[in-house]
């Protein structure tokens, strides 16, 4: 359970504004996280630490102002920081940075425990949890497990993360990432810090890239990232990209170099061509003939933990024929087959 991208990722709950649809989903999801706050067990380690988008120069400050305007029009609280305010908020950042944007309602969770909490809720509501055997076939209301068990259902929801072996036709590519976790240094870092260059890095579609992205954990540990690589299916750590990633981190926060690094690992994000997830009926995405039983919640790239609760509500709304709080259209999987349909 939760041992794929959920286990490998950081657990940053973040509003992203790269497209109106992404802004709507992340904002909606983050609001659900904030509603859940009181119910989350301590093991989920929810912290409303906020995000600071760090601007290295005046060019990036232009982006800070643009971002703050988008936040304002969407009703997302955000505050532009001067160099002095940035240094005051995060004294370990190097001198000479241009400023930043503080998004105070962003947060951090420990994703495997969050998944465990959601699972517990599902089980309490009557769901049965089977574990220990992979699903090897899913089609037309039938699921077969590797251990031979067969399950039938009117609706089958596939949430395969970056493992698309069940549905090889999905428009999902694996995008490898690396993270390093440090020993405990309480107080070293207060906010999740992300360089504004991250946006370029996360959205340049092909090249390998790294960006400064550090996260404080409630334990006092820090996660240091991040990297993005397409077409690298090797789970081993890649020394060259690790070095680039950590050099980038040290360029923003030199003091990280003296901290004790405990463990490096990799994970795979599930990336779609338009950077939006697939939420809804699979339709003809899985074959020539639409399979009405198959539904998808997939392709969340680096925003799986952020968008989990919003995606779940969108899915439930569609299954139950309810009106959703946000427009589900941009996330419907059939957007990737629509064009063909026109010409058929």
């Amino acid at each position, binding site marked *: 359970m939760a041992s794929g991208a959920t286990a490998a990722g950081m657990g940053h709950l973040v509003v992203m504004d790269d497209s109106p649809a992404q802004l709507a989903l992340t904002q909606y999801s983050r609001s659900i996280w904030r509603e859940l706050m009181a119910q989350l067990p301590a093991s989920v380690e929810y912290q409303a630490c906020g995000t600071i988008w760090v601007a290295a120069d005046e060019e990036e400050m232009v982006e800070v102002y643009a971002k703050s305007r988008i936040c304002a029009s969407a009703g997302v609280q955000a505050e532009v920081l001067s160099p002095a305010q940035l240094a005051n908020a995060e004294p370990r950042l190097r001198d000479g940075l241009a400023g930043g944007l503080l998004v105070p309602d962003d947060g951090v969770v420990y994703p495997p425990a969050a998944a465990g909490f959601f699972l517990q809720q599902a089980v309490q509501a009557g769901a049965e949890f089977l574990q220990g055997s992979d699903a090897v076939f899913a089609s037309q209301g039938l699921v077969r497990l590797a251990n031979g068990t067969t399950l039938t259902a009117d609706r089958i929801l596939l949430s395969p993360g970056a493992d698309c072996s069940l549905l090889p036709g999905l428009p999902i590519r694996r995008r490898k990432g690396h993270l390093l976790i440090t020993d405990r240094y309480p107080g070293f870092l207060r906010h999740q810090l992300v360089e504004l260059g991250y946006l370029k890095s996360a959205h340049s579609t092909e090249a390998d890239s790294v960006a400064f992205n550090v996260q404080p954990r409630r334990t006092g540990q820090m996660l240091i990232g991040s990297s993005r690589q397409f077409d690298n299916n090797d789970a081993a750590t890649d020394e060259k990209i690790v070095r680039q990633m950590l050099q980038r*981190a040290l360029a923003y926060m030199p003091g990280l170099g003296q901290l004790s690094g405990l463990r490096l690992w990799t994970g795979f994000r599930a990336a779609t061509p338009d950077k939006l997830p697939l939420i809804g009926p699979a339709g003809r995405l899985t074959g020539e003939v639409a399979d009405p039983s198959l539904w998808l919640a997939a392709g969340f790239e680096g925003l799986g933990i952020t968008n989990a609760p919003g995606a779940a509500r969108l899915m439930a709304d569609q299954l139950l024929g309810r009106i959703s709080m946000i427009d589900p259209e941009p996330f419907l999987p059939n957007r990737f087959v629509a064009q063909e349909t026109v010409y058929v």
Partner: protein
Amino acid sequence: MTQCDVLVVGAGPAGIAAATAAAISGRRVLLLDENPAPGGQIWRVGQPMPKGQAEGQTAKNQAIARLCACGASCLFGYSVYDAPSAGELRAICESGEAAAGPVPGDPHIVGLRYEKLILATGARERFLPFPGWTLPGVFGPGGLQALVKGGFNVAGQRIVVAGSGPLLLAVAAHLRGYGANVVCVAEQAPLAKMLPFAASLWSHPARILQGIQYRAALGTAPFHLGCWPVAALADEVSGKLTGVRLTNGKRTWTQHCDLLACGFHLVPNIELASLLGCAIQDGFVKVDHQQRTSLAHVYCAGEPTGIGGLGAALVQGEIAGLASAGKPTDSLQGRRLAERKFALKLEAAFRIRPELRSLARPDTLVCRCEDIPYAALEKRSGWIDAKLQTRCGMGPCQGRICGAATETLFGWKQTSVRPPLMPVPVSALVYPGLQPVSLKEHL
């Protein structure tokens, strides 16, 4: 980058034998160890024993004299933390003379390139959780022995040595040599298992003699077989250890003591082999009769291939050294086989009894790095699930201690090994392999 023909990791008996054999065969050999001097755990240098001579001193002196004469280079105080590419290891020195790298405050990092690699990484003690095992005053027998050799004074201290394995008697004898009052030795293995083992020793007269010497060195202290600790006791006010509850399954009693040395035999150090991708079988590095692993250019000798003690380490090390240099090893194969048989008997004799799996109470810590109690673990489905849901094994020791415990308690197999092999400064992952190292033979 430092280049050699044969790189030997670990300068215990197996590594010393391997480095010596390869160097005598004309190879350029580099022997590396994290300790400041050769010898490993069993031949660790330290404070001289006030009463008598430590056993095995002659064998050690001879081995080290041969090492010094063989032409191998040595690098002490360096720990291997990564294997970034085929034929290359990274090592770090964080303390001692070499620690200061060219950038002030940065550790000294070396990149080591090799044609053949010999892993002689030894073993560590297995700890099993029981109430009180984390109290101050409770040590591993090997750990306490190392502390005493480093100057920790045990004169007059009442010590219980408990757990399992041949190490218990050896450590008890050592502690007595340093003036400790060893009040008893408790070995969990029952007499029924020890008898065939003892009988098998008749083919190893030196070991019989050694055993008798150890036993004699214990003086009047009782040696209980089939006896194990169920709880360590502390004074409620001072928190100081006051004694240990011992049981033989029928009767349980309190043995007062100042220190408890408790460890349950050994766990092989296979992390570097795993990181390199060597095949692992039943928890040990798989090797052929030439000590070659599943990787053609990597050899392994000593405890990582099967807990076999000093004799196995010496012969396996020599074979690995010769084989890595392309020399025949036929004359050593008989000894290798005999040591292998001995190792199998050792394993059978000191097998962990099932009662030891149920000593922990719900609140007994299993993972000390992350403070994870037994109750949080018993409901998890496996090692990965436990790591993800409880953080067991995610702290600085990366499961080196609790991984062996949870394997014994729940049968969980540890999975992948990630770099770095032990905590290193983040900078060590950023600027590695750039610093030259002068290979002095500083023995």
